[in-house]
């Protein structure tokens, strides 16, 4: 009886999530009257703005991942090694981006770094891109920190550090040659999450007026009928692709270790 209810709830959940997706996908295929076609998808792919905004967002995602790794790996490492009592505080700080809306952050940025400020980042395209990268890094922080911290839990950080120190290694060598390679799987899963977040982000890019993928999706959605659901399906496919890659990386590394 409990089994029946368990399965029932599970199926209900599936329907709840799947129906809108199926509906959307079905609608995106109905551009040509009376038959299913990929016309809407072709239109999207033929649109130069799709490729421009998509590659722009990819580049920014890459920059965000690099900044995030450089920021998070040494921090999480240092907290584990030297300041274990500060961990709850750091965890709370990394959770703040989930509580503070992106729009608050971006207005703060615009106020702090506008053209008449001490650091007029919004005055140039490159400056704004840097600002946007910082914003994305903040948004991805909770995910990046958590996965790296979990990765660090699987190795004996303190002893490995001391072993490397006794062999003459300094902090940069220890981080680059010992710590980072050993949490690579965690860093990769953090990176895929970051990619998914950056590709879908709208608020920051729109308010900073940069040609990112998020605002493009919004623009298309406001003006067309069939292309927006097609684009949404594409975006879903990309996100799920990221999640699949994450699973693959995790499973692959587990498999490697299991061979021992």
């Amino acid at each position: 009886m409990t089994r029946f209810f368990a399965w029932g709830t599970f199926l209900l959940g599936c329907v709840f999530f799947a129906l809108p997706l199926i509906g959307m996908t079905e609608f995106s295929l109905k551009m040509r009257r009376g038959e299913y076609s990929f016309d809407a998808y072709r239109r999207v792919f033929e649109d130069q703005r799709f490729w421009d905004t998509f590659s722009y967002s990819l580049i920014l995602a890459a920059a965000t991942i690099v900044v995030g790794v450089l920021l998070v790996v040494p921090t999480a490492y240092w907290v584990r090694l030297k300041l274990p009592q500060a961990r709850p505080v750091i965890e709370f700080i990394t959770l703040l981006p989930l509580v503070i809306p992106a729009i608050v952050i971006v207005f703060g940025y615009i106020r702090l770094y506008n053209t008449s400020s001490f650091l007029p980042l919004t005055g140039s395209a490159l400056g704004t891109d840097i600002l946007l990268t910082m914003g994305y890094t903040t948004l991805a922080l909770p995910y990046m920190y958590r996965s790296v911290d979990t990765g660090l839990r699987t190795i004996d950080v303190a002893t490995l550090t001391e072993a490397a120190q006794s062999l003459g290694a300094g902090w940069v060598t220890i981080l680059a040659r010992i710590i980072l390679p050993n949490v690579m799987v965690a860093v990769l899963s953090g990176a895929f999450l970051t990619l998914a977040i950056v590709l879908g982000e709208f608020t920051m890019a729109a308010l900073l007026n940069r040609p990112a993928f998020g605002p493009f999706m919004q623009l298309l959605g406001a003006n067309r009928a069939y292309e927006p659901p097609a684009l949404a399906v594409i975006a879903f496919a990309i996100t799920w692709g990221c999640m699949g890659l994450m699973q693959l990386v995790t499973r692959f590394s587990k498999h490697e270790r299991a061979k021992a």
Partner: protein
Amino acid sequence: MSFLTMTNLEKLFGQNRVVKDFSLSVEKGEFISLLGPSGCGKTTVLRMVAGFESPTAGGITIDGKDVTGLKANSRNIGMMFQAYALFPNMTVADNVAFGLKVKGAPRAERDARVAEMLALIGLEDLGARFPFQLSGGQQQRVALARALAPRPSVLLLDEPLSALDAKVRVSLRNQIRQIQQDLGITTIFVTHDQEEAMSISDRIVVMNGGVADQVGAPFEIYNRPRTKFVANFVGTLNTFEVEVTDPTTGRVTLAGQGLSLPNAPLAAHVGEKLSVALRPEALRLGRLPDAEALLTAKVTDVNFMGSVIRLKADLAGAAVSLDTFNRPDTPPPVVGSEVEVSLSGRDFILLQA
């Protein structure tokens, strides 16, 4: 001046004084063990030498140079940990090469040294393996090779054998000692296992509550322990009460038999009761011509351990342990039987509190 000196080392963790006034001089090429129960500060002393902890007071010199304020990564020290601590992302060869790489040694030199080190530990063929593909004993040998590869001035080992099973533990400790003697490297070895310490050390430092109770060769520590703590921690002891009959010559009586204690004159008066101790092997089964006294004991337990037979017996009002060698032509005494036991006053140990 000795090669490695620790002078009046002290370490406080908060209010907790973990190491108190610890001084030790180690000669070049010497193998020293720090022996003591868990929590007595052995690891803390070792970590101060390695540079992972800075002493609250006192100083450390290596080869005449004051290293007290030097960072761990510039002390040129080899370290081996209980938890192996091999770098999981690197092969065995890369682990061994790590210290040389950090020092910027050229490729050819590195490769040659790695090959030499792997040959030294007998794992020539495993250079391409990853640590998780090795047994515990193999991993610890790789850790030894990694520590030795950059030619450290001092080798520090913190209970490196504790995680291994008994057979591997004995063979690896002999291998460590062999390599240490071949290379002539100054070594400090931390252990809580007295047999381990005695079997491979030149000298042993018995630690108790953050201080060095006694420093000496294994023979000295075992046969002439200076404190009750050392005597009890190292080996088994039988304690007796004897009555002083002549303090100047060291004469005492035990169960009516006269004995001469070794440390005459005694700081005691006639008729005073003294507490003395005797190792299990100093009580000898049978009637020995050179023994001072002969007593009868009642066997209460027989423990056949192979080459050694350990008996428990009641002797002169005390429950004692008595070790004797196995002899193929003589079966051990049975429980409940009376046996003759020979003993001599010169084997007694007088203990300070």
